[in-house]
């Protein structure tokens, strides 16, 4: 790694011990990657919170939030005092919703501790977006903007849909980027790595978030961390998929595989044509997605599910958009959540405020459901007590929740899920 004079001065301690530790980590990380240099970034999304029991105990024993940041955001063996962040930084999702602690089974002292941590975070200048979808609440990178974000579903959205330049960063590298405004110049920051490697041809049209989730999950498993170029049936998408469809698509592809960038020909900014999306690459593989692939993927995503009594329906992975909340409200209208089931919907806190204003929160609560923020069941490991069978409209969540919580999971459409919440039974099937 070659450092410029400014970066060397940071490493040598000009800007204090924390910045020096941050630069030290970036150098070790850049060397590990084989990067030649760092690049400036003014847009960081990461997590600095201590909302899990382990982190809280760590903070209590080792010296508070400075100790947490030193270890988990800088990989520093010594505790350094954390200065304000140097560049615009947004906080990702947390381990619980502090306003719903009781429902999530979080003890009051944990919330108290979190509140102190929240003050620390805000005090250092980190925006408390508290969401896996920063692009829904005001952090919307422009094309070509170099970013340093965690959260695979947000990274793939930033690269592919927005044309930002970004790799999947981790807690430590985003911590270091917050204090330095630097990140290794590697991977998707460079033109040549953004070009398509695989061709994916669709034999069917995709309408819903559910269908886009199926495609993403199937595709991710096959292309892993490469760059698929998706071509619509007939060469042209009749309807451009909107934010929520691409949110579910990218999230699924980055769960079954490690997709950080894709192209949708005629839709995403770097893919006006197949040729431009491939950028001179010869595709290493041509894949087709049709009825058989769709069906096999549905089976895979439902492989943990056996029992039809549904205890819990969780929506909002990645965090629901206001449009999805509106849709859920339409599906819920005039119905009640079954006494043997629960419905939790997760959204960014800022969108929750909009839902409150629109009367949606009220509609959900009147039906017996709950609109919550800042987290989800996989992050918080919190579900309604006694949950054995969950129903989900997110392929990403159907991938993770059974692994993390040991529950059975049904994956279906949003309507299937709302229906399960209101009847207590899973009746979803692949149309």
């Amino acid at each position: 790694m070659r450092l410029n004079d400014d970066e060397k001065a940071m490493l040598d301690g000009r800007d204090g011990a924390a910045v020096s530790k941050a630069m030290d980590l970036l150098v070790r990380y850049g060397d590990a990657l084989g990067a030649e240099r760092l690049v400036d970034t003014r847009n960081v999304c990461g997590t600095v919170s201590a909302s899990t029991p382990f982190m809280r105990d760590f903070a209590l024993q080792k010296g508070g939030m400075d100790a947490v940041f030193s270890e988990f955001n800088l990989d520093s063996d010594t505790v350094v005092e954390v200065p304000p962040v140097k560049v615009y930084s947004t906080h990702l999702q947390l381990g619980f919703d502090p306003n719903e602690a009781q429902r999530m089974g979080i003890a009051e002292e944990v919330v108290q501790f979190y509140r102190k941590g929240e003050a620390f975070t805000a005090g250092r200048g980190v925006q408390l977006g508290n969401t896996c979808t920063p692009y829904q609440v005001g952090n919307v990178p422009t094309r070509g903007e170099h970013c340093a974000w965690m959260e695979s579903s947000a990274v793939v959205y930033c690269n592919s849909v927005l044309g930002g330049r970004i790799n999947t960063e981790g807690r430590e590298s985003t911590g270091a980027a917050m204090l330095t405004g630097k990140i290794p110049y590697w991977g998707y920051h460079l033109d040549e790595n953004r070009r398509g490697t695989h061709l994916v041809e669709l034999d069917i049209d995709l309408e819903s978030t559910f269908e886009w989730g199926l495609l993403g999950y199937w595709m991710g498993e096959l292309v892993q961390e490469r760059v698929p170029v998706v071509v619509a049936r007939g060469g042209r998408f009749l309807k451009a998929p909107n934010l929520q469809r691409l949110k579910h698509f990218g999230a699924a592809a980055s769960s079954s595989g490690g997709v950080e960038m894709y192209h949708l020909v005629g839709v995403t900014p770097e893919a006006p044509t197949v040729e431009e999306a491939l950028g001179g690459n010869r595709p290493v593989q041509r894949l087709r997605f049709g009825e058989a692939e769709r069906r096999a993927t549905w089976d895979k995503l439902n492989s943990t599910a056996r029992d039809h009594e549904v205890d819990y329906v969780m929506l909002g992975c990645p965090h629901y958009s206001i449009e999805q909340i509106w849709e859920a409200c339409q599906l819920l209208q005039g119905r009640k959540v079954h006494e043997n089931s629960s419905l939790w919907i997760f959204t960014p806190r800022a969108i929750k405020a909009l839902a409150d204003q629109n009367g949606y929160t009220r509609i959900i609560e009147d039906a017996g459901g709950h609109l919550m923020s800042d987290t989800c069941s996989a992050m918080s490991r919190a579900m309604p007590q006694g949950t054995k069978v969950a129903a989900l409209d997110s392929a990403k969540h159907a991938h993770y929740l059974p692994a993390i919580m040991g529950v059975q999971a049904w994956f279906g459409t949003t309507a299937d899920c709302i229906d399960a919440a209101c009847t207590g039974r899973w009746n979803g099937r692949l149309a």
Partner: protein
Amino acid sequence: MSTTTGTSTIVLRGRKVVGGIAEGEALVTTERISGWGGIDPRTGSVIETRHPLRGVSFAGKVLVFPGAKGSSGWSNQFHMTRLMGTAPAALLFNEMTTKIALGAVVTRAPALTGFDQDPLQVIRTGDWVRVDAERGIVEVTRRSTDE
């Protein structure tokens, strides 16, 4: 081929990702590993539902795998394995990504990639593996009970 006299040594050469020297028993998988939602740092084992190593612990083992996939919590989960004493002894992998590079750095286990031979083909679970990441050398000693 005689199977009674134990040990032949195979040498692989690769590029240093994280320096250091370590040795241990190999744990080999041809499937990529998820960090967050894919392992449990408390036990150092894989938890992903359909993963061939599900329930198997990599603590103290030389983990040989294609690379990382999934959530950006990868580095943090492997960081936790170091603090909880369940980290792998060394990491040998083929596909370089930001997840695995950062994860290897904060796990602080010796790590290599870019090999002259495919470690997934050469190394078998149970082999004894010595990793000298500074020199970029991996010495593999076959388990004497080989086939």
